[in-house]
């Protein structure tokens, strides 16, 4: 794969980092120099053949790219017969799409001469990918994770520690992803000379939304080719889950010029978008500033952030990447809320019909695809980003479906 295949083409933000009305750089003065350094170094790196060659090699030989495209016929039968194709980011090394961005930024960190990496994580997938890259490159690594998330994603906490990272359980605020990001920013302000903040989604101050998207663009570039080769035409729709929105931007981006292809982002509606317990930022939020950029935010009339809720730690976030805000306002993409219940049903359905256990995050996209398939009918082809695998979610799923009790009764090994 050459540089032009996964580095940016169209849809670059303006010089101040705005996609339309969204984006920008709302950061303290202490971080201005560091963020400018990231922007300058990235601009140089992306046209440096040595950088792109090194990243290409890592994506191929370490991550295992290209990731496959899987036809899921038995699952599709439940979606009104529409043909559903899964882009298998769950099969990447570390188990999700997150590694694409992490390897890019890890190489950038090396170029900047920094020796320590910090990151936030919700579901732990970005934290695991970051800890992995730090092990590979020999960086010191600190991961901030909300205390609630360290409990519901305990397996990933163990993975990060096994990889040599320090995991800090953040106890402030809602004790989830938003607060992990706050704490990572606090660390960065204090340690910016030695430390790169390896931001894990397409949010934050410019250039992060553009840069993280560029590193994930490979998802859509590969998938578009694979779908064309497999089916002889473009899909009718591309569906992805959206928390901060990195896997969605990654798979959407290459399809933006294909105006006949619907782009559909599935947000976490928690207990329902019309209840107070959801994370449907684009559906229910308003424009504001959170974590360094102007975007949609779940907020009250005073501009205080409203705590989000989702069964999925990775989507439990009251903000969203600014490019998604722009795609929503321009109408190029649609955003739909998917409840906890719908996502969990889709998780079980894919497991039982295809032998693939998806992450709860990705299950939101699957639920969206089931609904869309029924709307579009059997002639439709729907490409879904299966952004991560579900191993980390087995505890949540086992409790949700009562699997622990079931196993005991069925095996007759009562205690």
């Amino acid at each position, binding site marked *: 794969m050459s540089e032009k295949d996964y580095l940016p083409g169209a849809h670059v933000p303006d010089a*101040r980092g705005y996609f339309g009305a969204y984006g920008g750089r709302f950061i303290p003065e202490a971080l201005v120099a560091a963020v400018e350094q990231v922007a300058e170094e990235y601009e140089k790196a992306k046209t440096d053949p040595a950088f792109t060659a090194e990243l290409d090699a890592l994506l191929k030989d370490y991550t295992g790219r290209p990731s496959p495209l899987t036809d899921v016929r038995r699952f599709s039968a439940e979606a009104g017969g529409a043909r559903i194709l899964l882009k298998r980011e769950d099969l990447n090394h570390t188990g999700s799409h997150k590694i694409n961005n992490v390897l890019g930024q890890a190489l950038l960190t090396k170029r900047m001469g920094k020796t320590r990496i910090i990151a936030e994580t919700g579901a732990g997938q970005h934290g695991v990918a970051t800890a992995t890259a730090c092990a590979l490159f020999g960086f010191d690594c600190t991961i901030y994770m909300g205390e609630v998330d360290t409990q519901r994603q305990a397996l990933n906490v163990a993975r990060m520690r096994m990889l040599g990272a320090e995991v800090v359980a953040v106890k402030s*605020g809602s004790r989830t992803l938003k607060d992990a990001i706050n704490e990572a920013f606090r660390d960065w302000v204090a340690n910016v000379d030695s430390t790169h903040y390896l931001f894990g989604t397409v949010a934050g101050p410019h250039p992060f939304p553009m840069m993280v998207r560029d590193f994930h663009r490979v998802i859509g570039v590969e998938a578009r080719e694979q779908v064309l080769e497999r089916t002889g035409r473009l899909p009718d729709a591309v569906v992805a889950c959206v928390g901060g929105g990195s896997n969605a931007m990654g798979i959407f981006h290459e399809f933006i010029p294909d105006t006949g292809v619907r782009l559909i982002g599935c947000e976490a509606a928690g207990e329902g978008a019309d209840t107070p317990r959801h994370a449907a930022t684009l559906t229910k939020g308003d424009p504001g500033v959170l974590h360094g950029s102007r975007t949609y935010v779940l907020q009250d009339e005073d501009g205080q952030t409203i705590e989000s809720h989702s069964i999925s730690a990775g989507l439990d976030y009251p903000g969203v990447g600014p490019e998604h805000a722009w795609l929503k306002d321009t109408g190029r993409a649609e955003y739909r809320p998917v409840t906890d219940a719908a996502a969990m049903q889709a998780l079980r359905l894919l497991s039982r019909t295809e032998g693939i256990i998806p992450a709860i995050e990705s299950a939101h996209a699957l639920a969206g695809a089931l609904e869309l398939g029924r709307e579009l009918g059997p002639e439709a082809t729907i490409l879904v980003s299966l952004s991560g695998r579900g191993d980390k979610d087995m505890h949540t799923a086992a409790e949700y479906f009562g699997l622990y009790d079931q196993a005991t009764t069925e095996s007759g090994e009562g205690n």
Partner: protein
Amino acid sequence: MASKLSSALAAAKAEDRAALIGYLPAGFPTVDGGIAAINALIEGGCDVVEVGLPHSDPVLDGPTIQTADDIALRGGVRIKDVLHTVAEVSTAHPGAAVLVMTYWNPVDRYGVARFAADLAAAGGAGCILPDLPVEESEEWRKAAGEHGLDTVFVVAPSSKDARLAEVTAAGSGFVYAAAVMGVTGTRAQVGNLAEDLVARTRATTDLPVCVGLGVSTAEQAAEVAGFADGVIVGSAFVQRILDADGDDVAALDAVRALAADLAAGVRRR
């Protein structure tokens, strides 16, 4: 006519001393308790006060101010309460300059022009907006200018000289020099970055340069007063109120005493 803020700083300079600037969040521990505490800062000797607008996501604050913000927000503090606090303090102490220190999103959400108008009407002297860099500040500065409000920008040890010139050119009132790289909170040492930053900042502007982040004792205040035009103290005041553990009288006495102590410090240089 000089702004309220410039006048307050000029008065300190006329006494050949550094100014003392104190910070407390509004609504902490209650709206009325917060007003009394900020009045006590001025009574103790602060020339300028910063009224914090408590925020759900105080990314530039350490644990002390985070705790105070949490208490204020759980107590239901609203922007109107912050403006009410400014009005009460301004009325009680017409000679002191009252600033609001706030993250950007509450102002953005409230309405930029509306916030500037309401702050000016409350008798406020200006704003410090620590997550609004100069590049994003044009709309605010226009509104602030129309209402005679100053906009204080922060500079940091990491700010390069060319950047310092851009920032100081956009600001008014004074320049807030962050003594250290980091979030708010008391520190054992002010550090050697501050003096260099003040010198580099002064090379770009005639505005007074005041130093904050980490200053908590009279000794540190005296040290900073030796090279800066003002000394900014926040977390140490917040900590006094937290330590009083609900005893309002003790809290007021403690912040008034600390302000007096610091006021003596800035006169010792």
